[in-house]
């Protein structure tokens, strides 16, 4: 109990302390997750929409793959990305291992199936008659797709929220491919792990509270998007 109270107090202290090391960690967390989320959304939303609207035969198989991908253990993704980016791996020449780029790649792999899978489900929930109606009103193919996405926007935003929650709080992959290097690849989750291991419980707790606050703020922002008409 003592630990908890001390952690809370320290968290408040830390937030207002303007400690540059802390802000660096927060900033990196947001940068890595933000980039990964942006790219996942840019690929995942069109992919999900296309899958949701098309009547291709392989859709059942692709859906199963995507839904499996939604439950990928981050640590397995980390291992895979590690092997790909390690010096002897196929993408070793990039020199990305133990850099934020590697962490972004890993988080994209985690977030993409979430965005695509949930977008697909949302698009499938839109009244099929809507497409015929907007085409009849003179929509081009692209405008038709856009109309369906707009109708499915509650679900699309939910997909982004789910993906964001999945990767901002993820530790296994960023730890493996980033290496938790101070001032370089240390993010909130890896810092929490480190501080817990070294017995700095109140600091770990403080970081955890900051992580929760960030996630809360980001979700509020995303939900405002959903509410807009």
């Amino acid at each position: 109990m003592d630990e908890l109270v001390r952690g809370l107090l320290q968290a408040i202290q830390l937030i207002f302390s303007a400690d540059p090391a802390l802000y660096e960690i927060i900033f990196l967390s947001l940068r890595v997750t933000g980039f990964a989320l942006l790219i996942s959304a840019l690929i995942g939303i069109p992919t999900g929409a296309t899958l949701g609207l098309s009547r291709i035969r392989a859709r059942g198989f692709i859906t199963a793959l995507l839904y499996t991908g939604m439950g990928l253990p981050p640590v397995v993704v980390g291992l895979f990305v590690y092997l790909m980016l390690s010096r002897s791996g196929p993408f070793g020449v990039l020199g990305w291992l133990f850099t934020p780029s590697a962490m972004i790649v890993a988080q994209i792999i985690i977030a993409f199936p979430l965005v695509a899978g949930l977008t697909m489900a949302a698009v499938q929930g839109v009244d099929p008659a809507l497409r015929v109606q907007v085409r009849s009103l003179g929509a081009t193919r692209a405008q038709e797709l856009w109309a369906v996405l707009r109708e499915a926007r509650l679900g699309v935003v939910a997909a982004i929220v789910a993906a964001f929650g999945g990767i901002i709080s993820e530790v296994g992959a960023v730890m493996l491919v980033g290496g938790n290097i101070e001032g370089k690849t240390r993010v909130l989750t890896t810092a929490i792990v480190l501080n817990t291991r070294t017995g700095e419980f109140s600091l770990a707790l403080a970081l955890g509270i900051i992580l929760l606050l960030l996630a809360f703020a980001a979700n509020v922002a995303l939900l405002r998007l959903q509410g807009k008409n």
Partner: protein
Amino acid sequence: MWRCCGCKARTRKQKGKVGTLIYRIKRLQQEYERRVVLDVEELEIGAGEMFALVGPSGAGKSTLLRLLNFLEAPTRGQIVYQDQVVNGNLPIETRRQVTTVFQRPVLLRASVRANVAYGLALRGQRANGRVDEMLARVGLAALADAPARRLSGGEMQRVALARALVIEPRVLLLDEPTANLDPYNVGLIEEIVREQNRTRGTAIVLVTHNVFQARRLAQRIGLMLNGRIVEVGDARQFFDAPKDPRTKAFVQGEMVY
């Protein structure tokens, strides 16, 4: 066979009345999963006329409307729209001259005003008061900012009609537009449609199973049964002197189907 010949002869006789044609259909067939649902030997629709197609549900009326709106490609045969053969690469400008109001209005999750403005937005046009004018015409000015999906069935259908009319189509296709609506809304919608046809010369193809509605609105009426057009005639002739016994049975409400 006599039916086809008779049908052709009648159509030819009517050409003078129809004036410029907007649609010419020849040997049109539509198949779904190898089942022929539409088989129209010949049909012509004039620019600016109000043509009604009656018949029981499942006769192929809605299929024909989808083809007239270029929403599907015909399995066989030809539709000529204003001297253009309808195929997959119809220019978007041509496609945008025709629109449909369906039996069940599908409105966007947005305000009434945004729904009515939708067709203009698709064309990159500004509303410039046209939307509000149209809302007043369908009696929905007071509900302009209401969420469209909260309206009653009749109000929703009037939104759909306003949304179709505001883009000033050359052809307005109506697919059972007032089925399941109350008499007040039916009257309102019919009056707007009639006015659109008379004062703006919009060609209207009305599909209905309600012969009374066809009689109230249309100048020319066709009966459709099992995917085929049985008879086409002037409204008066169609009701008072039908040439086909099936037409007689249908207009008198005696047809069993």
